[in-house]
């Protein structure tokens, strides 16, 4: 009898099971309670409906959570992603408004700035040995100030067709943001599952010192993941700014770092690092967005809306805990035995 390794089968399959159940349960609830939720139609040559909105609005957190998953896999965390979004949006918008550079250069410059911001986080973590939560907190606070500086404290609005397309355009009848998210997911999945990078990340998260003794270049890998998280945040920032045709430096991406961390955790990656699941994080991001849209749809007063949100997320997290599930299954037969 060859039993599969309990750790491997338990965490990878299990980690996807519960977020998937959560998402399906949410959608099933909507099937019953909100008529029209699944209504899709073709309008102006593209698909139109609530589900499309969820996918489209969900891309920002999806993009953020891609980078966040890798950072968390190494046992770190990146609080600065929301501010980096604001910086990326402000850089791109100010360049587009000035109209001096071709659009490709604008995108490249904006993503390069985001990568630099991420690299700065990485340097603080790797070389200054500051705890990730503190190191990235610095940029979380300072980044928004930098974005305000770039945008001169204004909300920069633009009508540049290429930039507007990024967050509002359609490709193959679906929002272009989906293509973008799919490409980003594909590239990340390929890099982490088809190369040794994923193994390096998990080994650093499990035991950094052991990984280093085994010859993993831990510093370089960590620098890379923070820079990568910066690029993901930059991409999300471009999409967010494009979506509202404006770079709102003071409010863009505000508190979105928490949504990204939540998506990763709901998706089954633990904050202590090690094993991670990109698909899980995508499911987590979709759960968060579906919840938000559902609450708008049900017309719940905004003051109480966070409560059902918390309940759903808490139950998904609890169901992922083996101890909690064990206790649930113990709780059921016990009364029978004692009676």
């Amino acid at each position, binding site marked *: 009898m060859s039993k599969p390794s309990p750790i491997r089968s338990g965490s990878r399959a299990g980690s996807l099971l519960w977020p998937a159940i959560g998402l399906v349960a949410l959608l099933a609830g909507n099937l019953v309670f909100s008529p029209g939720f699944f209504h899709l139609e073709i309008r102006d040559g593209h698909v139109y409906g609530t589900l499309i909105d969820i996918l489209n*609005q969900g891309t920002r957190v999806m993009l953020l959570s891609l980078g966040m998953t890798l950072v968390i896999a190494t046992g770190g965390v990146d609080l600065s992603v929301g501010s980096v979004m604001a910086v990326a949006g402000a850089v791109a918008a100010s360049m587009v408004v000035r109209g001096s550079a071709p659009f490709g250069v604008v995108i490249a410059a904006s993503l390069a700035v985001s990568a630099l911001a991420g690299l700065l986080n990485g340097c603080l973590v790797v070389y200054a040995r500051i705890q990730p939560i503190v190191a990235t907190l610095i940029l979380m606070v300072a980044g928004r100030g930098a974005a305000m500086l770039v945008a001169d404290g204004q*909300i920069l*609005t633009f009508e540049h067709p290429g930039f507007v397309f990024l967050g509002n355009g359609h490709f193959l009848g679906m929002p272009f943001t989906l293509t973008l998210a799919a490409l980003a997911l594909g590239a990340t999945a390929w890099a982490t599952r088809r190369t040794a990078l994923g193994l390096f990340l998990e080994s650093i998260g499990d035991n950094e010192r052991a990984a280093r003794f085994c010859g993993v270049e831990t510093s370089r890998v960590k620098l890379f993941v923070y820079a990568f998280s910066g690029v993901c945040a930059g991409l999300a920032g471009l999409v967010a700014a494009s979506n509202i045709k404006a770079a709102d430096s003071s409010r863009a991406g505000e508190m979105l770092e928490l949504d990204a961390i939540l998506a990763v955790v709901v998706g089954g990656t633990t904050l202590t690092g090690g094993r991670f699941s990109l698909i899980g994080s995508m499911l987590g991001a979709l759960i968060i967005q579906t919840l938000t849209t559902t609450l708008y749809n049900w017309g719940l007063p*905004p003051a109480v809306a966070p409560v059902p949100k918390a309940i759903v997320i808490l139950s998904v997290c609890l169901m992922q805990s083996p101890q909690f599930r064990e206790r649930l299954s113990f709780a059921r037969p016990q009364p029978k035995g004692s009676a």
Partner: protein
Amino acid sequence: MPLSLLKPFAPSIRFTLSIRRTLHALIATGLLAPCLVRAAQPRLTIGFSQVGAESAWRTAETESIKSEGAKRGVTLKFSDAQGRQENQIKALRSFIAQKVDAIILAPVVETGWEPVLRDAKRAKIPVVLVDRGVKVSDESLFATLIASDFIAEGRMAAEWLAKKAGGKARIVELQGTPGAAPAIDRKKGFEAGLASEPGMRIIASQSGDFRRANGKEVMEALIKKHGSEITAVYAHNDDMAIGAIQAIEESGRKPGSDVIVLSIDGVRGAFEAMVAGKLNCTVECNPLLGPLAFDAAEKAVSGAALPKKTIVPDRVFDQSTAKSVIASRQY
């Protein structure tokens, strides 16, 4: 020569040639004229304790008070509390120690002002409150409160909409951040304004958190649910309305004609949207409190009686007035 006129103003810079030249230029262009006229009267020294610089609205308010002070030749002592009450109390105590003639205070919170206001009263320094009130047991502790009335803003929006829509509308309300005073009062005022209009119904009311992106996201969701039933959108601030306008456009309807859109604040972006015909109306929440604040402070110093509350007159701007006003908007 102009130099002799400058003496009382610039004792320390009298010998700096370049600055002197600048002052000459300023006098020539008439910018310093009000100061010169007022030089005969004793100059007031006024302390101003501001909450911070968290929004464009707040910056506009600070700018208004600073420039009005300069215009009136007042020596203004400015203190930015960076959002903390203890900094404001410290600033007030230092103003009292410096024996200023009056204090202007934009309080960060409502409570905890009693002791320091009592000190100010004992030193016979009148305190003028701007944009937010304080809770004190004795109303004589401050001279007056100068503020916008958020409830009135909501009511004005409702009245304008009822008139525009002919008493019949299906309205989506985009609320501000849950719990924030402007969000609560703008909702309350709007509902009160609609109370006598049975044909005007709010069919959905959700929070867009005063943000452009959330205004758009919420509107997208509500359009999917209510579709063409929606005939009007009322947003608690301009940013959310601008977001909602984009969502309406993407659904294939025309904001401004198919759907009436109105909001509150009156920032520049709203005027641009009105000129483009996409926003119908904005109720101004005026941050330019400078003139009113100094009027009140001067009156209080001279011992004249003041009403306990001075409401800043808010105005309704719609597409017909937007074009002529947009150039003169300062924020």
